[in-house]
């Protein structure tokens, strides 16, 4: 062990850093708990408002896919980022079009997928967790100041209809926001463990 790491002043600094990290972790955990708690409550309020039949897993899309994932670096596991699919289509191209129909062998008619922008099939843009641009959240589908309003074709809110209660939109916003905090929590936890190990090694070095 080097003299630098076994220096009592250095150990003190490491200890203070650890305490700061713990405090940050607890604060972030508390804020994410509040966010989640409110989101679940908003969801319950929305169910009460719209009816329990209308806001339930029964209305989930059969072709649902993840629109936000967490990528973890292979070399540095602490490098976690939220990856969001920001594909949108213009309202003008979609309006009035129900999509092509094609018959399956079973006689059940299905709609083919709507044509989407080419970005959907590619990897989504990397966005740093915690620095997320709020305007790109799937829950934000409307910008009234734009002439052509774009609609997030993969917005799960549409599964429950167009006229959903405001509480459901608030719940979605809460869950989306909490994802960033979870990633931050995981990064902090990883950093905590690393700092703890380093501190233990440093203290072991002083006693040796």
């Amino acid at each position, binding site marked *: 062990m080097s003299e630098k790491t076994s220096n009592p002043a250095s150990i003190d600094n490491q200890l203070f850093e650890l305490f700061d990290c713990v405090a940050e972790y607890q604060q972030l955990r508390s804020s994410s708990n509040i966010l989640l*708690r409110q989101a*679940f*409550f*908003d969801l*319950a*309020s*929305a*169910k*009460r*408002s719209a009816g*329990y*039949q*209308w806001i*339930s897993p*029964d*209305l*989930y*899309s*059969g*072709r649902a896919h993840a629109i936000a994932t967490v990528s973890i670096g292979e070399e540095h596991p602490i490098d976690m980022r939220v990856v969001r699919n920001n594909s949108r289509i213009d*309202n003008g191209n979609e309006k*009035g*079009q*129900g*999509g092509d*129909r094609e018959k399956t062998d079973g*006689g*059940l*008619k*299905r*709609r083919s997928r709507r044509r989407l922008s080419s970005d959907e099939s590619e990897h989504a843009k990397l966005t740093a967790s915690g620095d997320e641009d709020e305007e790109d959240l799937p829950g934000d*589908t*409307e910008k*009234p100041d734009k002439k052509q*309003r774009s*609609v997030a074709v993969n917005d799960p809110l*549409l*599964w429950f*209809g*167009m*006229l*959903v*209660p*405001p*509480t459901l*939109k*608030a719940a979605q916003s809460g869950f989306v926001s909490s994802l960033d905090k979870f990633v931050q929590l995981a990064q902090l936890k990883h950093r905590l463990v690393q700092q703890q190990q380093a501190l233990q090694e440093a203290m072991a070095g002083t006693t040796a």
Partner: protein
Amino acid sequence: MNEIYFNADAGYLEGIVRGYRDGLITAPQYLNLTQCETMDDLKLQLATTDYASFLQNEPSPMSTSTLSARCTDALVAEFQYLQQNAAEPISKFLDYITYGYMIDNVVLLITGTLHERDTHDLLEKCHPLGFFDTMPALCVATTVQDLYSTVLVDSPLAGYFRECLSAEDLNELNIEIIRNTLHKAYLEDFYAYCQNLGEPTASIMADIIRLEADRRTVNITINSFGTELSKDDRAKLYPRLGNMYPEAQTRLARVDDMDQVKAILEQYGEYKAMLLGVSLNSTSGSSGGNELSLEDRFFSKEVQLNKDSFEQQFHYGVFYSWLRLKEQEIRNIVWIAECISQQQKDKINNYTSIY
């Protein structure tokens, strides 16, 4: 003269429904429910109510969705008993009540098919009161024309589809328009039917249906903020009856935010009183322990009208009112259950007590 012959046709059923009314949960029982710490405690407290036999076989821990489903089963069982023992003209009135559930089932099946859900799963999730014979065939339709010509033309909802036939393909926006247009046509038709039944059914049901129309108008307005629904389309979804028809509806069709909604509602006496103490930026109890939302006020008003209908005899309104009170009771129970399971005890009292 109505009083003389009413009991011959519907006296037994009126007695039954008044018995059902007496089984509704009272305020002291609600207090006991709100003091439960766990879902098992809640289940124990509900063992003294009409839901006991439907909940006793549910394993612990019971989820709120299961609780809602079992309570609905209890309601369906009671209503179906009324239907099975009803003859004309009361049977037609009870059938009219079920048309609303039929509309919801139709929309559920169309939406589920659009999202490529399994049809057998969807059929199991439909409301039992709204089931009709050709309902399973809904899953093959892709346009409104197909929907009408292959399935609904022989159903009780055929007449309500006239205003929907202009919609072409079935997508999220059109389905929502169809749903609200059907409900609008149903409400108007039900209102006209009740007026033909004569007094006192006509006046009692008129008040209840007008309130329902107003509530739908406000909900459509508020829920349409920030969506693709144009203002013209929004106006077309409003029922053509109610205290807000036509003047307030014309103005509500043009608003863009909650403040404008409040400004319009405040100009009408009964709604001005309803707005006192209401936080328009919150919805059902989400803002705090004692703040009420506009929706809660509508629920309270609806409960009051439905309770008042039992003060008169020899009318069919008691059947509709009991059903709505029972649905409110289920809403209350599930809300209390959600607050218990989420440990949100400060908001547990945001229910609308009936008796």
